[in-house]
């Protein structure tokens, strides 16, 4: 087990170094001149040269890479060319909205997907199984941005149930302001006991979160159903059935544990999808998160911002894969023996 963990961690570190080199190279070979943009449109040749020195662009590439990585290890991702803020500070502002969206989306997908998958596997061919499989195929195939529009038309324009875009309404911002402690509106307002702000933020969060949950929901239903069908056909579960135990008890109490490796894999897949899937959804709902930040940075050739965000998302993605692989090895001993 220890050697397995060691190998996986080594590989992850290697991958992160590879990722940092790639993002660094890509960001540094951007065709337009970042120093000229940093110095501003009316800068003289001397000012541009000074900006070049300030940004460290006059040094050879390997030196620039080492300096950048030394900064990264200290939590310094450089200075954004457009906002002139520290990139780390910009990311700290845009990360909570994105995470709030991703976490709620995942919770919705799991809470809805697991029961549908398990019930479908308990009675293959029943109406709930048919419904689950059809919903899974359609939701996995739905372009997320189109689904966003459909939900906006349905729940905002037609039923007037939920707000159409943004993170919180101006009215709530003015009447019941909440002190930003973590940057997560739901947590901040709950800590302050400010429930009207909480409700307003939650209602704004629901539409994008539902949209983001669609694809993971489909994945969860498919995977849970497939592995549950397999487990229920095995001798040990058939024995429980022969002994007279009720099917729901067998499924949820005994068989479910054996579907955990598959479930962990699907959670990792879904999370990985959501990390970048949120880019599209933030664009549809005007959500001020990381996706929004990166798209703006891309348009303005703001390379420190693109680099910092890419590196951060990549590290989270790799770390997540590592955690899931170790989790699977933990619940399924066969993996760590092979």
């Amino acid at each position, binding site marked *: 087990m220890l050697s397995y963990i060691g190998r996986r961690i080594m590989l992850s570190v290697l991958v992160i170094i590879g990722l940092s080199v790639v993002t660094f190279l890509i960001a540094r070979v951007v065709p337009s001149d970042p120093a000229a943009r940093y110095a501003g449109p009316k800068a003289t040749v001397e000012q541009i040269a000074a900006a070049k020195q300030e940004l460290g662009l006059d040094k050879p590439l390997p030196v620039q890479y080492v300096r950048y990585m030394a900064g990264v290890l200290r939590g310094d991702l450089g200075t954004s060319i457009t906002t002139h803020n520290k990139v780390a500070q910009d990311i700290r502002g845009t990360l909570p909205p994105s995470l709030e969206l991703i976490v709620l989306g995942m919770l919705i997908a799991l809470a809805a997907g697991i029961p549908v998958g398990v019930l479908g596997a308990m009675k293959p061919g029943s109406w709930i199984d048919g419904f689950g499989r059809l919903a899974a195929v359609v939701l996995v195939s739905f372009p997320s941005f189109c689904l966003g529009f459909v939900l906006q038309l349905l729940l905002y324009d037609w039923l007037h149930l939920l707000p159409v875009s943004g993170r919180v309404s101006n009215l709530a911002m003015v009447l019941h302001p909440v002190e930003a402690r973590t940057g997560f509106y739901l947590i901040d307002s709950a800590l302050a006991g400010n429930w009207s702000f909480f409700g307003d933020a939650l209602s704004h969060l629901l539409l994008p979160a539902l949209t983001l949950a669609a694809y993971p929901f489909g994945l969860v239903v498919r995977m849970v159903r497939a592995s549950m069908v397999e487990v229920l056909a095995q001798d040990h579960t058939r024995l429980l059935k022969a002994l007279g135990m009720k099917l729901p008890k067998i499924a949820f109490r005994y068989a479910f544990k054996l579907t955990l490796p598959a479930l962990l894999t699907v959670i990792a897949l879904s999370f990985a999808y959501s990390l970048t899937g949120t880019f599209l959804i933030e664009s549809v709902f005007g959500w001020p998160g990381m996706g929004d930040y990166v798209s703006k940075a891309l348009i303005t050739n703001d390379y420190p911002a693109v680099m910092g965000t890419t590196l951060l998302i*990549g590290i989270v993605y790799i770390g997540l894969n590592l955690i899931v692989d170790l989790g699977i090895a933990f619940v399924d001993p066969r993996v760590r023996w092979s």
Partner: protein
Amino acid sequence: MGKSKLIYYMRHNALVTFGFAILALLVLASLLAPWLAPYPQDAHGAVHTERAFLPPSGAHLFGTDALGRDLFSLVLYGGRISLSAGCIAIVVSVAAGALIGLIAGYVGGWIDEMLMRFTDIVLSFPPLLLAVSIASLLGPSLSHALLAIMLSWWPWYTRLIRSQIVQLRSAGYVESAIVSGKGAGAIMRRHILPNSLSPVIVQASMDFGSIILTLAGLSFLGMGAQPPSTEWGLLVSQGKTYVLSNWWYAAFPGLPILLTAVALNLAGDGLRDLLDPRQKGVTR
């Protein structure tokens, strides 16, 4: 796999047949776009501002866009771009991935180790991020979006093919071919490749849908096809500001994206049951 078996199977599985039918319809409609499109000049730069934002009607089945172009014609022509781009991406990814997997699996040793670790590194790169990086490096365009997609999809096939080959190498008929003195190339062509192809075909048919979705998403974000292209994702993105006032503008270009992805998913399920019975029902 005989043709008659496929027909027998389709007759007994309505959903799979439905998938293949939708797919055939979409491909046919795109191929016949010059004959089917009522306003073919609209897909080639014609602008009629006096007919902007007309709702769907007999004259304009899908309505018109902000420039007064007939959306039905645009969507038909867009299919040629979206579907052929998807085809190119999947074919190149499969070919490149299979070649590398073949080398890794057959040669083995340190070459195998090196290739597979490299594959692991590429696999842990989120596809959309790679596209973002490439768009910022080379500028946004359809071909750069395709490049990003191909760069992030090939490793899946490398893994798949390699695991197949490692299994097949110790199969009786391969070992006897080696013993009888056949060359490595002949063994790969005659014995290994044909037997490891089925799972690849199944995987590719499923991935085709994801690739179509990713491509549309990239165009939607402005990192793929650029105007005046009529690529589906780009059309949706042009309609996005009018969703609440002119729903048809974003809806009708979005519909074929959804249909293609659903059809490919259903068809892929069917192909898997047919070609790879061991996997039957695994992801359904």
